[in-house]
């Protein structure tokens, strides 16, 4: 079993503390959810763990071994950014080769007929699905998914949740999204990032206590 541990993560931006002494642990077989308001530092936290952003002080360890180079160099951890990152002139077949994707990705029903299409010619949803599958089916031991459900149709979100759960059997997954109900259903552990700190969330009322959701509007939503 692989274990990813990141601790002492601090980040200050223009005098404002974004992340303060964060500790996060993820083992293979686990899906960890992060939620937080816009600008709370979820993406920064993921990028610091990934190694593409440097915090003021951080320690990222995989199986107890300290990464003295950014994790992105070692390909132990991969990262799905919020915005499209794949090159428009590539096809899914080329991605499978270059990222050494698990051949199981060929069996994904929603990707049928898209293998030879250039990514630039696909719709946002199709392209996003390919990006998520690329990250999930790549051989990295840990995958960080930044807002994988945003702007996607409910059916596609359900498909992605199934693939996250399937791939979590062989790797550790940390994901963040604003669709907190989907995140809560998908994840084994669930944290709220607020005021630079991670708070463990067990129930919806914890989210109300931390004022992430408004109890009144939530009640209205449930009635509807």
């Amino acid at each position, binding site marked *: 079993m692989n274990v990813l541990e990141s601790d002492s993560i601090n980040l200050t931006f223009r005098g404002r503390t974004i992340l303060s002494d964060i500790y996060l642990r993820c083992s293979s077989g686990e899906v960890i959810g992060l939620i937080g308001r816009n600008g709370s530092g979820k993406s920064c936290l993921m990028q610091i763990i*990934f*190694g*593409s952003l440097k915090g003021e002080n951080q320690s990222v360890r995989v199986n107890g071994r300290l990464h003295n180079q*950014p994790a*992105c*160099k*070692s*390909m132990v951890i*991969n*990262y799905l*950014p919020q*915005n*499209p*990152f*794949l*090159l428009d*002139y590539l096809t899914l077949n080329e991605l499978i*080769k*270059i*990222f050494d994707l698990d051949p199981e990705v060929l069996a994904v029903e929603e990707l049928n007929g898209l293998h030879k299409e250039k990514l630039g010619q696909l719709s946002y949803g199709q392209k996003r699905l390919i990006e998520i599958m*690329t*990250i999930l089916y*790549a051989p990295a031991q840990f995958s960080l998914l930044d807002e994988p459900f945003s702007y996607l149709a409910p059916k596609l979100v359900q498909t992605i949740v199934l693939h996250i759960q399937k791939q979590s059997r062989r790797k550790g997954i940390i994901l963040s999204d604003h669709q907190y109900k989907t995140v809560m259903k998908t994840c084994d552990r669930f944290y709220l990032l607020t005021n630079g700190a991670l708070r463990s969330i067990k129930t919806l009322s914890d989210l109300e206590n931390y004022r992430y959701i408004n109890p009144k509007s939530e009640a209205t939503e449930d009635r509807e």
Partner: protein
Amino acid sequence: MQKRLIITRYIFRELILTNQLFTVLSAALIYSYNEKSFVYVFWLKVVGFLFSTWMYLQYRKNRLFFFHNLGVSKTMFFTLALLIDTIISIILFLTVLLLS
């Protein structure tokens, strides 16, 4: 090895193509003024590369994650791009110099 070559080709396509405008302009200078233009060509190429890098970081920064996920850091990406550009430029300039 084959994977590295493919990644290098992508880097070329991502950054160097924009920079080729400056390379062609520099080649025209060499063709017209021979060795006298070398100082100007050097600075033109420096400005060209910095401009291409700036443009990439401004408008296509997110695509760096594609390379990060393949194990290529930001420093490695731009160093490799500079190296490829230098090799292409030297070959082109020498050819132009011989022809002029």
